């Protein structure tokens, strides 16, 4: 077995406080669940239920208008409680109230076709995503490879060794099922000292493990694809989150579809950041109400405004904002909670800035000892260990002026500045030449974070990819 070791040098681990403690609370009893069409890039949903309808676990709520085999299903037995629409009657959420949580039981699938059918039937198929474009995989496609990242380096991300404890066999079974679906390789990426990797051997021939070391975004699937087998124009790869691989593993070994996962609830505002076991799409209202601690966070002097919380499904770099009573996103296994930053900062750009975090060393905080720095074992006063992270942009939007910094946090063989500019001007040919098919918005999250000119780079990349996707579909 060939062992592939990859070292990522470019990147950044943002030192935010409030990582989840290794302890799981069972929250399978949550009443409300939602499936959100907005979680799925480019989806035109076709609604299949009405308010009040009874649905079973694995019962379809809506499907893809362009491919009715792709069904989006209820994670529980219950009743459709609400159908939430937004502007122009756009379907936002289908909310289901749980009666009981008996799982869906199918016949144990064996062949590739049976596995595919079982996944489409249960709704698990939607956990398979395609690159480029980040859409749900097309069942007719033959991907050149399937990628699974078994760790996450994003700020406050869950520890998969802990999350997948006791599920290692299902994880392996799931990977083997993916290998049957793919006519190419299944690449699984671990970080170098991950316990989970040991449970995999002996591996079947189509599984190839890789060991990726380095700062965020080393755990991002995009970084891993770029270093293992970059996507060329016209090629398609599929990706699946590790916890969905476990659900698949259970489906193929017992025939039971049990859409459960363990999520981390984390952030600097939270009382006891730790893990919760939930079903997919669960309402986080109860968790937020019990966890959020609004005091004790450094406020600005003279700032009397009550600070709101921002609840994010996903990580703080590329997650989606949801309300305090919202539902966790289909692809997320992290809820991050941050204080809002809607305050004015008097002369903020000229002050020394002891509590401000910057990748550049333009604030005094960059020169103060870090909490990990202990000369002769003495803990220095921890000036810089408690960063004041909130949602303030710390400045207004400006043209792209400081153009040399993206390269330092962008571990791709791509010129980020040039690609962003090509996306802004909408030059499709140039975007293709510069490697647009190899990236997703989340790959640019760190560029956006450190950007001096406060440009919304992820939005620019998403819009460019959507333009391209429509262009490709038309041809």
């Amino acid at each position, binding site marked *: 077995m060939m062992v592939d070791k990859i070292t990522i040098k470019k990147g950044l681990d*943002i030192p935010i406080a409030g990582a989840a403690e290794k302890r799981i609370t069972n929250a399978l009893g949550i009443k409300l669940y939602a499936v959100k069409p907005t979680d799925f890039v480019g989806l035109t949903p076709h609604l299949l239920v009405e308010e009040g309808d009874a649905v079973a676990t694995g019962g379809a709520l809506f499907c893809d208008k362009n491919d009715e085999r792709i069904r989006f299903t209820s994670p529980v037995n219950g009743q459709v409680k609400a159908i939430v629409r937004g502007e122009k009657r756009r379907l936002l959420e289908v909310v289901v109230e749980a009666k009981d949580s008996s799982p869906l039981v199918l016949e144990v699938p064996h062949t590739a076709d049976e596995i595919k059918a079982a996944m489409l039937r249960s709704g698990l198929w939607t956990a398979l995503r395609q690159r480029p474009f980040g859409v749900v995989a097309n069942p007719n496609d033959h991907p050149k490879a399937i990628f699974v990242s078994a760790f996450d380096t994003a700020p406050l991300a869950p520890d998969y060794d802990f999350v997948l404890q006791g599920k290692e066999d299902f994880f392996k079974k799931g990977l083997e099922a993916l290998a049957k679906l793919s006519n190419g390789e299944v690449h699984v990426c671990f970080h170098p000292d991950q316990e989970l990797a040991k449970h995999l051997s002996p591996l079947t021939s189509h599984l190839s493990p890789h060991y990726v070391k380095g700062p965020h975004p080393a755990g991002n699937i995009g970084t891993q694809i770029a270093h293992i087998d*970059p996507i*060329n124009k*016209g090629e398609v790869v599929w990706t699946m989150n590790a916890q969905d691989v476990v659900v698949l593993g259970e489906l193929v070994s017992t025939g039971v579809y049990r859409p459960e996962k363990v999520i981390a609830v984390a952030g600097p505002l939270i009382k006891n950041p730790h893990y919760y076991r939930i079903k997919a799409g669960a309402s986080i209202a109860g968790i937020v109400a019990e966890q959020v601690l609004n005091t004790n966070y450094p406020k600005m*002097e003279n700032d009397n405004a009550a600070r709101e919380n*921002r609840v994010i499904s996903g990580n*703080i*770099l*590329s*997650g*989606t*904002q949801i309300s305090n009573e919202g539902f966790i996103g289909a692809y997320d296994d992290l809820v*991050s909670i*941050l204080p809002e*930053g*809607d305050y*004015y*900062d008097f*002369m903020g*750009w*000229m002050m020394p800035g002891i509590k*401000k*975090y*910057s990748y*550049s*060393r*333009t*604030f005094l*905080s960059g020169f103060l000892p870090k909490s990990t720095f202990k000369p002769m074992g003495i803990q220095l006063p921890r000036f810089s260990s408690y960063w004041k992270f*909130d949602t*303030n*942009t*710390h*400045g*207004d939007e*400006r*043209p792209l*002026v*400081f*153009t*040399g*910094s993206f*390269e330092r946090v962008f571990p791709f*063989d*791509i*010129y980020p500045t040039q690609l962003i500019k090509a996306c802004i001007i909408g030059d499709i040919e140039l975007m293709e*030449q*510069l*490697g647009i098919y190899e990236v997703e*918005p989340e790959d640019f*999250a760190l560029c*956006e*974070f*450190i*950007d*001096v*000119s406060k440009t*919304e780079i*992820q*939005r620019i990349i998403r819009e460019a990819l959507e333009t391209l996707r429509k262009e490709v579909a038309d041809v």
Partner: protein
Amino acid sequence: MFNNLRGFFDKLKPTFSEGGKLAWLGSTFEAFETFAFTPNRVTKQGCHVRDAVDLKRAMITVVIALIPAMLFGMWNIGYQHYIASPETVNCHFFWYCLWFGFLRMLPLLAVSYIVGLTIEFAFAQIRHHQVNEGFLVTGFLIPMIVPVTTPLWQLAIATAFAVIIGKEVFGGTGMNFLNPALVARAFLFFSYPTRMSGDSVWIAADLWGTDAITSATPLAELAAGLQPSASALDMFIGTIPGSTCETSVIAILLGAILLLISGIASWRIMLSVILGGGLMGLLFNAIGANAYMQLPFYYHYLMGGFLFGAVFMATDPVTAAQTNVGKWIYGLLIGIFAVMLRVINPAYPEGMMLSILLMNCFAPLIDHCVVAHNIKRRQKRAIVKSKNSAR
């Protein structure tokens, strides 16, 4: 104080916002408001947290890096004046020198900022854009790279030319392809050559006016076929005649350290300019056809604006090459051309300005070639792949 000021802005805001009486002055109001308060804007999508640095902070960091050179320049203006004038004894008094230089620099700085900012505000207002912070640095740089006796009206015209033709016609900061401060200097150099070079511009004769005490810079002496009269140590410390703030290597290095630690300027560009200059100097040493060519190569770092240009001008992120490989090429060529112009072309004793402006013009081409290489590699990868799968 904080609340009063905040209340003052909040009260005025509706007047200057859309629909208000003074809405046509919106950009100006916004500029003053964001000067006093970092806005309360929050992230909407994508990254929910942002780095604390913004363009204002980045620009003010460059200004801070320029301050050692500015202070030394002020002192040196006074020092040069007193050693050359009848009141020679005053040159031993630090505060006398600094005060004299401060009074000479103040009008230059004021003219540069007033003219430049007026135009910037006007353009921002016409375009309904926000006022960009770029001029914070440009306005500081322009007085630092001209002779102390430059007439204020000439400086005003040069600044206006640099801001309008060098920057605004291309769309403002971030869109220009020439370093605006160098455009101002080049404008002065070609429009009023007698006030920008020669022997009678470098030392102020008195506190006001444009009269000068005759004295030659080391570069002028070399161009005239002489050896520099100042020692290498004097040139390193900076107690020589020259443009106001470019003489002290020590002060410039202090600024360079801040720029490099803060990550604002590119170390690749600084290093490669210095390497390029050194290489060319060594090459001339090897040829050794005349006295100038035999000059030890490191003298080029000590004289004139070479180091100032390498640290503060060549590294301008807008006008420099933007790819990492491109930065090496860009910097090397700046160093090479600067020394080449100095030694071979006696019409331009100082080659740094022209060399940087020339490479500003070529930076997009360099980047284009570097990026084209990346594109070609990607295409090749796709072709190899499709051939393999065809088999």
